[in-house]
């Protein structure tokens, strides 16, 4: 994540970007490589929302210790998002309930949305990228 400084495509356009995270961490690389895209998008001063639904809510679990599988623990990056002005983090209530999770279990503060609220948020985006 070397090029996270301020970037500009010259157009001055600000679009609403939603990043939809539906996959668990570690089993596949999408969560990790998805974070890299989110950070770059914020560096372009775009209006960024991160949404966690389905198994994506597992990305935010507290207490992750990945030493035993010999891969990087990137879960602390979620706590650093605020420093890059990425403050709109949403999780899906239904996905949390289905996994027995509450906000207390998560490593960052999030806004919990119902399915309908989530659907409306998605519908008003300019660009939705799913990982």
């Amino acid at each position, binding site marked *: 994540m070397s090029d996270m400084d301020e970037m500009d495509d010259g157009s001055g356009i600000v679009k609403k970007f939603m990043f*939809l995270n*539906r996959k668990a961490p570690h089993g596949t690389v*999408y969560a990790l490589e998805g974070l890299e895209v989110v950070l770059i998008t914020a560096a372009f001063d775009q209006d960024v929302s991160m949404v966690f*639904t*389905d198994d994506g809510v597992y990305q935010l679990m507290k207490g992750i210790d990945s030493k035993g599988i010999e891969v990087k623990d990137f879960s602390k990056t979620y706590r650093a998002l605020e420093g890059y002005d990425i403050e709109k983090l949403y999780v899906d209530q*239904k996905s949390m309930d289905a996994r027995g999770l509450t906000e207390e279990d998560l490593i960052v503060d999030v806004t919990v949305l119902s*399915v309908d609220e*989530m*659907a*409306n948020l*998605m*519908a008003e*985006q*300019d*660009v*939705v990228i*799913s*990982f």
Partner: protein
Amino acid sequence: MLHIVNKSATERGALESCLAMATKGSAVLLIEDAVYAVTNGSTAAAKIQAAAADLKIYALGPDLAARGMAGRVLDGVNVVDYGGFVDLVAEHSNCQSWL
């Protein structure tokens, strides 16, 4: 909004998550292994037909044919070719692929 689903509904949760979040009047296009969902007798058939009341359901014809399913498409589902896929993306102001 155009929702694009490419996973078999019997193996993955993508279609169900999509249908739960698609707002009234949205379009849902099924491609690749997702097209099995719109065939007669599939487990997802009832869900698709219920969803068709509020959503426009499309399926990619070349993917149906490649799976031997061209003659088994549920009533109420619109079959499109790649040209129709392009038109759907152009006609909707945004799109989301349920990977």
